[in-house]
């Protein structure tokens, strides 16, 4: 489990682009031209088969080259499963390695169909690799079969492959993949391959494929960026402005430099870096660093002032239309029952367990970076700019990330840019490792945006829902190279997944007002759905209650054109025993919520016990439709993870500011879910599907908070509309 070493890259003797357009023959990787002739030589049993996504070694191991970051979501298992299936490999022989930063070969086709951006996000890994890796596996299989046919002088049609063994039954001959790899490397790459019918799958969706990274991650042997050790490497920390938008005007490094072990103190665009022989000396040096900050352009407002501004904007006219059906205003005027509600969502930090870390080694014409890198192409460009090189001169070794939840994919590559700028400022004299402390992480920005929603929803006399929503929240992509994602003035990562997009409503509208705020924001696991699903699903519950209907029946009546949603909702209701009387009692309640995000539909039913103002989630039943379930055990794990992550935000998560300074700094102030707060029972059911797979890394998160809020309503009669939940405050309101 390692990044793909440079030496191995040079061994690539040909390139097959298996993405979309079929196979391209005879291409050679950049820098490999001199090795082109190597593939023409005589077959050798001890040679590997090396292709862009698959390497088969003489020792029988099959290594899948993974272009996506493994950050816990299981791509190091899911992507190899796709290859192994079409290759008819044995699971035990599968290995995985991170791809180098190389576009278009390793570009994310979901982010850009031309593959110009390598990166991981939007729960796209399995979805965009699905056909690409099936073809890669089938191609390698066909080449192994061809090599066996040549060696045995038999027709390819008489050869079978199963569990890593190639067999010619009539003659009783068998060979392993490793024995055939060298020969396979010298047969022509087939222009077309036949993929299996899903009914023939033997690995995909067929029970538990052990994760390829479990052993390393259960023994302390997994290497993360923070573990990288290079000869002569120094460690840096950065003192950043106390308010966002501030800049260092001047600094006095005398005391910092006097700390034993501190070797350099340098100004960089984002602050002042202290470099030491180890983290401890660098950190001690930083504690003594004196910086005068220029805060003339800094954001100085606190959360209260921001919310007041958001309320003013919510009441104003200025907004762009996100989604509109029929005439919501007219329908609301005629509605016999109208509910007005305001929802509030705080800034949220991602707080991955591995604080942001990157290592950089810089020479005159080359920059090499080690990181749990989520945005390789963007990071290459930004690092190149910092060090004055071209993007192709920046190599990125993508290591396992200790969590990300979106934090490592920043349009300005904040921590990658920082480490590159430190390497530049110190003249490349030593490799440098930048570590963000937890305080740097919690106070350092890139938060899920603060949001205020106002909804008016009503029931008309013929039982139809009228729905109008205003969302006030910062744009994530505005002012970044990703602003091209905006359509008709709407940032789809700031607002979306709304009621008119997810239910059959005749009269509904959603509008958005993005305020100008100097707090840096970013996509946070499931992005716009984190807040949009909440207000939508709580309002659906309120409407069902107003209509005196069962919350699931009420939703199903508005999902007629969405059979996947309806099926998932019925599945979760069935498994949770929704039609049975709830074994309630004082303080007990259950609630439901559903959201489609990233092409995956997830519904959850939460059962809670409320004691005083304390909310305990006892049981969660979850149903998911993510197309063909590639690795069901990983899907279950991602649903559990998404639920736990969402519960952290529902129960505790909030970043607040006072006069522009972040109030929280570590896990004491920024509380996250612990084992005693995790539901004891989480049941996950996967809806059967023959559709291509969609992602599971994020979609488990959005439904849990509204499901719990709806359960608390049943338990207490209190409607929770402000995150994180504060029952005491809600009772007073």
């Amino acid at each position, binding site marked *: 489990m390692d990044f793909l070493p440079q030496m191995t890259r040079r061994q690539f003797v040909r390139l097959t682009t298996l993405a979309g357009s079929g196979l391209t023959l005879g291409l050679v990787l950049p820098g490999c031209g001199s090795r082109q002739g190597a593939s023409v030589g005589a077959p050798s049993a001890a040679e590997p088969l090396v292709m862009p996504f698959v390497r088969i070694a003489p020792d029988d191991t099959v290594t899948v080259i993974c272009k996506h970051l493994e950050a*816990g*979501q*299981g791509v190091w298992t899911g992507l190899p499963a796709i290859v192994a299936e079409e290759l008819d490999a044995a699971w035990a022989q599968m290995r995985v390695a991170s791809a180098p930063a190389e576009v278009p070969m390793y570009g994310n086709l979901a982010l850009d169909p031309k593959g110009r951006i390598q990166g991981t996000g939007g729960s796209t890994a399995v979805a965009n690799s699905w056909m690409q890796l099936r073809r890669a596996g089938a191609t390698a299989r066909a080449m192994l079969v061809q090599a066996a046919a040549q060696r045995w002088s038999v027709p390819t049609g008489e050869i079978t492959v199963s569990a890593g063994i190639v067999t010619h039954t009539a003659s009783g001959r068998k060979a392993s993949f490793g024995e055939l790899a060298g020969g396979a490397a010298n047969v022509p790459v087939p222009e077309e391959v036949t993929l299996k019918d899903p009914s023939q799958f033997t690995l995909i969706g067929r029970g*538990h494929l*052990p*994760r390829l*990274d*479990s*052993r*390393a*991650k*259960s*023994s*302390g*042997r997994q*290497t*993360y960026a*923070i*573990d990288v*050790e290079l000869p002569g490497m120094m*460690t840096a920390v950065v003192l950043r402005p106390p308010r966002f938008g501030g800049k260092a005007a001047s600094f006095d490094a005398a005391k910092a430099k006097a700390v*034993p072990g501190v070797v350099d103190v340098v100004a960089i665009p984002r602050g002042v870096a202290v470099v030491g*022989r*180890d*983290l*401890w*000396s660098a950190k001690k040096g930083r504690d003594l660093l004196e910086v005068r900050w220029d805060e003339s352009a800094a954001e100085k407002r606190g959360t209260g002032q921001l919310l007041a501004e958001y309320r003013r904007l919510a009441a104003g006219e200025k907004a762009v239309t996100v989604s509109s059906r029929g005439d919501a205003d007219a329908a609301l005027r005629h509605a016999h029952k109208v509910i007005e509600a305001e929802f509030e969502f705080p800034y949220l930090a991602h*707080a*991955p*367990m*591995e*604080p942001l870390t990157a290592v950089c080694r810089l020479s005159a014409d080359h920059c090499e970076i080690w990181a749990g890198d989520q945005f390789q192409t963007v990071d290459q460009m930004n690092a190149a700019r910092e060090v004055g090189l071209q993007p192709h001169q920046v190599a990125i070794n993508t290591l*396992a*990330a*200790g*969590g990300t*939840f979106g934090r490592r994919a920043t349009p300005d590559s904040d921590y990658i840019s920082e480490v590159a700028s430190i390497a530049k400022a110190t003249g490349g004299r030593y490799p440098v490792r930048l*570590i963000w402390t*937890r*305080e740097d992480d919690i106070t350092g920005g890139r938060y899920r945006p603060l949001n205020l929603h106002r909804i008016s929803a009503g029931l008309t006399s013929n039982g139809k829902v009228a729905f109008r929503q205003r969302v006030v929240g910062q744009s994530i992509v505005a002012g970044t190279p990703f602003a091209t994602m905006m359509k008709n003035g709407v940032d789809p990562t700031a607002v979306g997944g709304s009621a008119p997009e997810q239910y059959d409503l005749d009269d509904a509208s959603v509008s958005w007002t993005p305020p100008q705020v100097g707090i840096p924001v970013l996509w946070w696991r499931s992005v716009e759905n984190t807040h949009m699903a909440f207000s939508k699903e709580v309002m659906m519950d309120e409407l069902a209650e107003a209509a005196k209907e069962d919350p699931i029946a009420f939703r199903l009546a508005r999902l007629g054109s969405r059979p996947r949603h309806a099926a998932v909702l019925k599945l979760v209701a069935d498994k949770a025993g929704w039609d049975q009387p709830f074994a309630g009692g004082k303080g007990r309640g259950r609630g439901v919520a559903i959201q489609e995000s990233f092409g995956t539909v997830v519904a959850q039913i939460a059962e809670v016990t409320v004691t005083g103002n304390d909310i305990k989630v006892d049981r969660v039943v979850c149903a998911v439709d993510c197309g063909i379930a590639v690795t069901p*055990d990983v899907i279950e*794990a991602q649903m*559990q*993870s998404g639920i*736990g*992550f969402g*519960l*952290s935000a529902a129960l505790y998560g909030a970043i607040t500011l006072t006069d522009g300074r972040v109030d929280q700094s*570590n*896990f*004491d102030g920024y509380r*996250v*879910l*612990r*084992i*005693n707060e*995790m*539901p*004891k029972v*989480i049941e996950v059911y996967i809806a059967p599907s023959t559709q291509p797979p969609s992602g599971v890394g994020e979609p488990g998160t959005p439904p849990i908070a509204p499901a719990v809020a709806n359960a608390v309503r049943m338990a207490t009669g209190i409607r929770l509309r402000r995150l994180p939940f504060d029952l005491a405050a809600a009772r007073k309101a």
Partner: protein
Amino acid sequence: MSIRLTVNGQARELDLDPQMPLLWALRDHLALTGTKFGCGMALCGACTVHIDGQPTRSCVTPVAAAAGRQVTTIEGLSTPAGRAVEAAWVALDVPQCGYCQSGQIMSAAGLLASNPRPTDADIDGAMAGNICRCATYVRIRRAIHQAAATLAAAPE
């Protein structure tokens, strides 16, 4: 200042700032990177090691406080409880990002060493100091029960 301690059974001598947290002595000076930095304030448990068999947060333990004592890190965890815990972690595919799991395993091994058949409440008590942002808690709980069962079935 020279500090002598035993790490994973080996006598080590370190010439370091005595106030340097044991975590950074292990990671930056003994190349034992299995023990992780998460918070620096004993709030998350990622840095958990055993000192004389007791789970301890190495991020707030000065290296001088470990002088003359037996330090065990994930790399040297070889007790029956430790082996059972690691095996259960693998069998149930507990890890996701995996970053916190060294600390989780050290805490779990410490729990089983003192309490071979923990209840759910015992697990909550022993493991609530270890944060997992991937929220692998359901499987952690199951793996601890499985490790306990393995230990109970093993011959003395």
